[in-house]
């Protein structure tokens, strides 16, 4: 199993994160675990033409925060107010 996946924003920014973190998103998880899905040779590379870089960045941070939270580190996740709406929509899209 590949350890990391690459998420690309609409502007072309590449975020390489742990597979485990990416799977916090149900959508991404479904994709990665589909039958006849991705063999070892394939990259786990996904482009999100509808998600901007700052949002995607925030989402990646969220993934890690979520993993830590579930492991007991109960901190707060700060969201800048101006990102809220887009972040919610992206979260909905990614089923996070």
């Amino acid at each position: 199993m590949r350890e990391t996946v690459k998420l690309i924003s609409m502007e072309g920014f590449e975020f390489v994160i742990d597979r485990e973190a990416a799977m916090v998103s149900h959508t991404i998880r479904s994709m990665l675990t589909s039958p006849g899905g991705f063999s070892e040779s394939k990259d786990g590379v996904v482009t999100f033409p509808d998600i901007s870089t700052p949002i995607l960045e925030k989402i990646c941070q969220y993934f890690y925060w979520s993993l830590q939270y579930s492991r007991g580190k109960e901190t707060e996740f700060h969201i800048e107010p101006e990102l809220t709406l887009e972040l919610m929509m992206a979260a909905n899209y990614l089923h996070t």
Partner: protein
Amino acid sequence: ILSLQRVMKSIEFEQGWSVMETGVAKLSRILEELPEPPFLPEEYMNQYTTIYNMCIQKPPLDYSQQLYDKYSEVIATYNKDTVLPSLRNKFDEYMLKELVKRWGNNKVLVRWLSRFFDYLDRYYIPRRALPSLNVAGMKSFCDMVYQEVQSKAKDAVLALIHKEREGQQIDRALLKNVIDVYVGNGMGQMEKYEEDFESFFLEDTASYYSCKASKWIQGDSCPDYMLKSEECLKKEKERVSHYLHVATEPKLIEKVQNELLVVVAKRLIENENSGCRALLRDDKMGDLSRMYRLYHPILLGLDPVADLFKQHVTAEGNALIKQAADAATNQAASSGGVQVQDQVLIRKLIELHDKYMVYVEECFQQHSLFHKALKEAFEVFCNKPVAGASSAEILATYCDNILKKGGGTEKLRDEALEETLEKVVKLLVYISDKDLFAEFYRKKQARRLLFDRSGSEDLEKSILLKFKELLGGQFTSKMEGMVTDITLAKDNQISFEEYLSTNTNTKLGIDLTVTVLTTGFWPSYKTSDLNLPSEMVNCIEAFKAFYATKTKHRRLSWIYSLGTCHISGKFDQKTIELIVSTYQAAVLLLFNNTERLTYTEILEQLNLSHEDLVRLLHSLSCLKYKILTKEPMSRSISKTDTFEFNAKFTDKMRRIKVPLPPMDERKKVIEDVDKDRRYAIDAALVRIMKSRKVLGHQQLVSECVEHLSKMFKPDIKLIKKRIEDLISREYLERDSENPNNFKYLA
């Protein structure tokens, strides 16, 4: 406040749908195993995103419903155009293979499509309470494909199973997968599997085995038939584990058992030549174990087997009884012959019990039905008398033989003896007249203890412990008391001898040993006013004085009939020590004063009864050791005989026992027991009525029987008589309103 406004294109339905169609087409090609590269993440996300976008658009561009319908349509079309045709042109095993493939494919199809269309499952579907994508997809296959082929598939499967039953190899993995199709299409319920497959399978199985059973039962012996049945059951269980659903196993086994074992049970088990009775006769333990294993899981299946077992054991037991009875009548002439037969009988009964207990334990796995059968069988013949002696008496005699000197204690080692005693007690369980046994045992025990004939004190105690365990303390209290008395007597004797040595004015001239018995523990003995020889009178007085120093409130009755004397007989040739009973000694000592005595003179001098005297004189003059000579030299005593001391008597031994053959105690024992029984019945009746106050006749009788069953089986007529007696003694009265009822009178 939005800081970023993105331009979001609206997607027209046709536009969006054509994207999906591409994805669907690719998926189809993959499923049809056409050369097609797998989905890239881009392609996947594209599919997902398309659906997502089409669903978040504001109405009227919210295409959720259309997309949901399209989803179902896609799957239905695929089933209709691709899946069904591929199944329709195939048959039998090929069709099954195709079905399994298509079923697998369907799962993949539904999974992929529902991931593409996933967004619908998040909001649209729950809000409208519609079937989820997964359910809708599976249902499509179920309604369109499964429904059409399931019946043919079932036939194909049954055909393969039949082949396997007839011994051919089949593709088990394929069948397992086909069964999964039936189970899977139940959508979580077992209905489809049960209705579309299992019920037909069970019916088919039943008729298959019904056929086999009819064929086999004609020609096969019982053991062979059972072997085949066992094999079939084993194979069917394997069948379940290899490809059927686990829930089918109990139903399957029940059907097979029914056809192979239940329907033919009577014919099989009762087969004259090779059925249960024959197997028992020929000691075929392996076959009997098999019979038990086969019929054990079947409701009431073991009943006929247990019944035949009981019949067989009863027949064997009865045969032993008859054997003993016949031997006894044949040997009635020779004395001691009857005795030996009794003992042989007990030994054989014990052997019989041991033998069939092994059957109960090993073949029949300690099942209660068979314990019961064995018990009931033994209860039948263990209560039959042999040559006039009840089984209770015979068993008591057997015990006596083991416990007395020269009997078992010298012949067998300790463990063997303990074991034998255990088995004797086991037989006692089956004897209904336990109180009769107790009385005979007690009489013989008394004789052993009093005449020092017991082989081992430990064994005496050991067997009493066993009795106590089995029948309770009340049964053994008297017997134990007897043993204690003997022990105490030994201590007492030491005290007596000390007393004698310290009291120098009491010179007895005779060594006297006295055993004091507690009345009530010991059987009742007649006392008689024997005129003691003067030598003995002093001794009696001395002991009386001694005893008075020990206790003030007890009265001693002397039972001379139980005493033993050692007398020096100064015959012409040599002096011989004679061991005789006190009565015999009394007779002999008369001849110290006179040479000759007539019967009548002896009678007057000793003050004995005729019965006793005849026996005494007979033992001294007509048997092996003729201490007295008799005129005339006939073999029996008459009142006109004369007796003389036989100075010419001699024997190679220096000490001899001159036995006095005991009187037949049988009649007395039976009388005593009958008397005790009357009291026991009275006591039981009163106890029952006291607690119940009012009771019907039938019930009173049956409860009475129940109460007493531990010790004996009371005669119903006797109970009724005792009830009448109690009424006349005003313990009970008849109920004036209902004469069938009795009332307790306080």
